[in-house]
């Protein structure tokens, strides 16, 4: 040993370090205890407070002179040391880590040893021979220390079982720390004449124990993060379950037990704004009253009953702190906040679902009503017009020529209007049916169909020229709807043309889809009215012009095209044509099965 001063400096450094760690823990515990007064914080404070006093005593300059003062000082020091394992035991007891009988045994043992210490005449000086009584006394001291510390350490170590990862690991570290401190004190107590080097080693071991205890109390973020891993995996699973919940009850069932588990809480509950308990674990409904105060969303309040209540936008997430709550920190509260915001999102999503379901039910009811109305229309509205047409027919058949001049003209007008009414009812019904009850689709050559429709319309408008040229798509489409579409478009084009109408029907590709173009050389539609032309009952000419029509042709076309996922627009005449209209229908690729030249006969494959 080069210099005896060096180990002494080391010893003081080690003792100083130990004292510093202890003081830090004391400060943290005092703050914790101010936030939440509980037996656990009190006993923890007792452990560190007493340890701190003992450690501080090393710096008190009391001479080793065998005086009465010195003896008194030693007795107080020993008594304080005796209290440490008991306080540790009681700390473990407050976390229900050890049983009541162990605690009682600890009390009796500690009491006996304190009395023995107080009764002892004097302690032998270092180097002095120890008497038998003193050897027995020291043995009892060491055994008492060891038994209580081991009981406390063992209890703490296993108390975290079944708790969230942080609590579990904290309890283990507490247990380990208690064991190390105990072992250290036992070893220092059993050695009568320790060398300075040995004292440095024991002090450092003691410091390690205290550091372990301190770590468990003042959990650093990096340790918290590494321990939180398993809990976060549980949290993620909970969040996934929350995302698939579709009712507040499901949200509650998915979240409440998980929250209780995650926080090692004694209970958890989800309460809605009306105070109704959606789900609860370990909490009685009677404990959950009086939550409707003015807390803001996201606030965590502590109720008079000691419950943590997190204000959601709809209701409350309530947690009853478990026995390990003194070990909670801000991190736990922010985690609670995070879970609460997930629960809140899930609840809001459920409300959206519910309002959507309500609106859908309303829409379905309205739809059913509309169906009933349509049924009535199709039966009842038609009957009178059938009668009117019937009588007109009888008049025409049996009383022809009986009405003269204007009389016959009026009868003709009745006929025209009755027929118009018949068309109106028919078109209105058709319009309402499209997209509602769709006839079956089939592979359909649009060109062949357009040619056939063109021939029919040419027969009605003999002066018109209708050309169907080029390649046309083969569509997967209802023939009835395709025929309605083409008939309306070609008929419109033919009847709105001035003089000899020229109607052209062509098709072109557009990506994977198809575009159908029906153009005429009519008066054309001003751009401002092109959008309006698709509105029901919208006619550009007055109702009494000679152009027949109900004004429902284009709306019907629009419905048919949109039901198939396409779009329909009106454009001006093709280049080089002075006036006219082009109807452009874009159909999606999903219904285009191929292309076929309208001039070629459609070859049907035979099975």
């Amino acid at each position, binding site marked *: 040993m080069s210099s005896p001063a060096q180990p002494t400096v080391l010893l003081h450094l080690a003792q100083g370090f130990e004292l510093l760690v202890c003081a830090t823990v004391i400060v943290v515990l005092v703050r914790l205890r101010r936030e939440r007064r509980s037996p656990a914080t009190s006993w923890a404070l007792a452990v560190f407070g007493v340890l701190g006093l003992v450690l501080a005593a090393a710096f008190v300059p009391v001479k080793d002179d065998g005086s009465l003062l010195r003896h008194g000082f030693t007795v107080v020091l020993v008594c304080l040391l005796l209290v440490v394992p008991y306080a540790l035991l009681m700390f473990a007891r407050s976390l229900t880590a050890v049983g009541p009988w162990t605690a009682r045994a600890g009390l009796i043992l500690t009491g006996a040893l304190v009395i023995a210490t107080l009764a002892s005449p004097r302690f032998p000086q270092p180097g002095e021979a120890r008497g038998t009584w003193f050897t027995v006394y020291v043995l009892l001291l060491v055994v008492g220390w060891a038994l209580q510390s081991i009981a406390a350490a063992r209890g703490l170590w296993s108390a975290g079982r079944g708790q969230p990862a942080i609590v579990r690991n904290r309890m283990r570290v507490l247990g380990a720390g208690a064991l190390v401190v105990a072992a250290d004190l036992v070893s220092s107590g059993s050695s009568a004449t320790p060398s300075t080097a040995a004292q440095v080693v024991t002090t450092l071991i003691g410091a390690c124990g205290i550091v372990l205890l301190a770590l468990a109390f003042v959990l650093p973020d990096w340790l918290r993060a590494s321990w939180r891993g398993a809990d976060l995996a549980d949290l993620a699973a909970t969040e996934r379950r929350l995302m698939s919940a579709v009712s507040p009850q499901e949200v509650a069932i998915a979240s409440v037990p998980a929250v209780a588990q995650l926080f090692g809480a004694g209970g958890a509950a989800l309460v809605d704004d009306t105070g109704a308990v959606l789900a609860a674990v370990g909490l009685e409904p009677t404990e959950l009253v009086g939550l409707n105060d003015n807390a803001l969303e996201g606030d965590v309040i502590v109720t008079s009953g000691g419950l943590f209540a997190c204000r959601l936008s709809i209701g409350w997430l309530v947690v009853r702190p478990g026995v390990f709550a003194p070990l909670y920190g801000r991190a736990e509260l922010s985690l609670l906040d995070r879970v609460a915001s997930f629960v809140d999102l899930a609840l809001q999503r459920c409300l959206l679902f519910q309002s959507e379901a309500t609106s859908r039910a309303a829409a379905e009811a309205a739809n059913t009503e509309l169906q009933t109305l349509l049924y009535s229309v199709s039966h009842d509205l038609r009957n009178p017009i*059938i*009668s009117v047409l019937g009588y007109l*027919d009888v008049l025409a058949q049996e009383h022809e020529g009986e009405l003269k001049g204007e009389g016959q003209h009026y009868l003709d007008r009745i006929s025209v209007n009755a027929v118009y009414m018949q068309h109106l009812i028919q078109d209105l019904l058709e319009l309402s049916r499209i997209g509602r009850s769709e006839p079956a689709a089939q592979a359909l050559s649009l060109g062949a169909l357009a040619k056939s429709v063109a021939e029919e319309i040419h027969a009605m408008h003999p002066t018109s020229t209708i050309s169907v040229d080029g390649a046309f798509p083969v569509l997967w489409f209802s023939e009835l709807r395709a025929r309605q579409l083409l008939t309306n478009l070609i008929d419109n084009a033919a009847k709105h043309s001035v003089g000899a109408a020229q109607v052209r029907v062509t098709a072109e590709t557009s990506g994977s889809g198809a575009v159908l173009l029906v153009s005429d050389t009519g008066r054309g539609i001003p751009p401002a009215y092109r959008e309006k032309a698709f509105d029901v009952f919208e006619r550009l000419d007055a109702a009494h012009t000679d152009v027949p029509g109900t004004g429902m042709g284009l709306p019907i076309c629009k419905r048919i095209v949109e039901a198939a996922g396409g779009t329909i627009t009106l454009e001006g005449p093709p280049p080089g044509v002075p006036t006219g209209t082009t109807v452009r229908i874009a159909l999606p690729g999903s219904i285009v099965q191929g292309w076929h030249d309208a001039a070629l006969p459609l070859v049907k494959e035979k099975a």
Partner: protein
Amino acid sequence: MTPPTVPARVLLAEDNSDHAFFTTRAFHEAHSGDLDMHTVTDGEQLLDYLRQRGDYADALRPHLVVLDLKMPKKNGLEVLAEMRQDEELSRIPVVVLSSSDRVEDISESYARGANSYVTKAASLTGLREGVGELARYWMDIASLPEPA
């Protein structure tokens, strides 16, 4: 072939008196031979007539029933179903003559055993043409079973 010795009997079930008038008229116009046509105005009456009950105890069963779907008391589809389950009435051909062109009405009528479905609005010149065609087919072209 020997011509039928009895006049063809047609029973029309129709609650709209105007429609009944046109239909009866169209049948008489279209059919060249003797025609014995009666009208009932609801489903109950129709079944009473067919089962020869109450006021219709002496009625002779028709060769053909022309049935409207929308009628008071018992609608056409209900009557149709009952007729088809009744052994004595199941063979009588039934032509549905309705103002509806709903797909559901048409398929349901055939599903319940209608022999034909004709829409009143099929012809825009009134009932005459459509019913005339119908009458010609059922009275002059088709062979009808003798009712039980």
